């Protein structure tokens, strides 16, 4: 066998293996989407049909009529959007303060922030839950948003990025009579756009997919976010209380597919942001 032919065969085999793995990874999501568009009897068929033979939106209708799915969607969206905006504002402001000013306590305070990234959320789960109960914030947006508006990692990320913005820009703005907040708003914010984009995606996804905390503070069905609501569809101890498989798949589709579409659109930036956040934060 010639070396060239051998190389060709290796290339083809290699691509087949990677392709097979890729299809395997896609299977759960493809199955989910497909199952959400079929009648129940067709879902259980083996081998499964990829394109539904009997195309139907009944599962989606059921999802919206039998569960407050629309309310869950609104809750999740509001919480994720508000949390993201607040995180962007507070952490860029604080990151700016830490990066561009020398003040008493700068180092110590920043070290506290840095050290706190070692504390796992589970440690404060119970005390934070008690605080929320005392404030009567359970079942409300407050509990889902306010404690998460200032994550330490975000400050770290913003400080790193803002440090790389030249201080001369600030000084010339000061000569032109800009206030300190004006410098933040007119110089730092526009120049820090890449950091804002990366942080926004990470924060939004973290909030959108968050489960442990919302599960802890949400009991009322209409107050639930998507993941908590979806989990409640699985039912409790009694058999038969579980939602029909089609409705569950329709719900799972509506949570994941929009996010994946956005992911495909911004794939390169997202991956870059992820590596930057991890290596630095």
């Amino acid at each position, binding site marked *: 066998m010639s070396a060239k032919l051998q190389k060709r065969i290796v290339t083809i085999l290699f691509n087949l293996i990677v392709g097979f793995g890729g299809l395997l990874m896609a299977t759960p999501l493809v199955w989910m989407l497909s199952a959400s568009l079929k009648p129940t009897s067709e879902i259980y068929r083996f081998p499964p049909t990829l394109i539904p033979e009997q195309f139907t939106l009944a599962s989606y209708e059921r999802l919206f009529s039998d569960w407050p799915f629309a309310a869950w969607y609104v809750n999740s969206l509001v919480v994720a959007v508000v949390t993201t905006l607040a995180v962007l504002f507070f952490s860029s402001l604080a990151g700016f303060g830490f990066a561009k000013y020398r003040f008493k306590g700068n180092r110590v305070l920043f070290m506290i922030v840095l050290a706190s990234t070692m504390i796992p959320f589970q440690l404060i789960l*119970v005390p934070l839950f008690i605080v929320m109960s005392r404030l009567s914030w359970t079942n409300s947006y407050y509990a889902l948003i306010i404690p998460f508006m200032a994550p330490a990692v975000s400050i770290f990320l913003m400080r790193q990025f803002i440090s790389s913005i030249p201080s001369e820009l600030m000084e010339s703005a000061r000569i032109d009579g800009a206030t300190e907040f004006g410098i933040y708003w007119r110089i730092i914010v526009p120049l820090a756009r890449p950091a804002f984009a990366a942080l926004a995606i990470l924060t939004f996804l973290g909030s959108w997919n968050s489960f442990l905390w919302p599960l802890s503070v949400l009991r009322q069905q209409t107050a639930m976010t998507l993941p908590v609501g979806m989990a409640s569809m699985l039912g409790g101890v009694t058999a038969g209380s579980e939602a029909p498989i089609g409705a569950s798949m329709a719900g799972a589709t509506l949570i994941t597919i929009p996010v994946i579409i956005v992911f495909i659109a911004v794939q390169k930036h997202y991956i870059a942001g992820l590596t930057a956040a991890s290596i630095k934060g």
Partner: protein
Amino acid sequence: MSVSQPASQAESVQAPVQPSDGRLSTGAGGARFAPYMFISPFFIIFFLFFLFPTAFALVLGFFNWRGLGQPEFFELRNYERLMRDPIFFQAVQNTVFYTGFSLFIIMPLALLEAMALNAKILWFKTLWRILYFAPIVTSTVAVAIVFRMLYNREFGLINEFLMSIGLTPVDWLGDPNAVKFAVMGLVVWRWTGLLAVYFLAGLQSIPDTLYEAASIDGANGIQRFFYITIPSLRPVILFVSVIVMIGALQIFDDPQVLFGSGSPGGPANAGLSIVQYLYSRGIGDLLYGYASAVGLLLFIGIFVLSLVQFRLLRGFED
């Protein structure tokens, strides 16, 4: 303990200030107080909802308190009980299994995946990257619900497939010997892509000239892997392994949804994780002190691993 306490601490941050370091000042103290104004919104929230609960958790671990009435000082009894608690012991064992599996199976798999996605001979790179990396952004709850169906004993896709090739079906979510693997199956799907992203970044920073030089010296693929790839990736491998350990110690969503709220630990608690146990004791049974003790033990484990991570990150910056 009142909630307002940390707030006063936050205010005391605005104490006497040194003038900023020779930079132009806006006159009436603008630049002096500005940094405190900038960092205080963050610090108020940080104190109220992070540092205060952290201190609260440390104290709670020494009390017996169910939210009503006076907390009873319990000395170390919460911890003593934990040491004799068979369910906690089971949860620790399961979590150690999850951690080991993640380190020794999922991490190498992710490295292989990254190498494959980085290979020059791969066609349609972007397509495969999208397929392999898409799980990173998906909701664990949604995907766990899908996997719950795929794992179904009677008509799940996995058992149908096993039967079609003549194997016996497995009761993935009902057999105590199988449930940990069911959880790990989902975690493999969720994590390999994420870890591969880090490995891929590491691989791309290895200069091609290293490989070329090795090839000229007659090194084959396996030698190049062990003498160039692995040593060059060492910091990334260490970093990823810490992320994996911390992540595995915090596993909650996957088993919680796979097994459902009826028996969230799976049959005989064979899939119960430490965080699930913390949740069921603290939020379910309102055993605040006991759950906080679990939290503290988890924190110590994670703290030690995070210290390692900091050491490694320092190595990165050099």
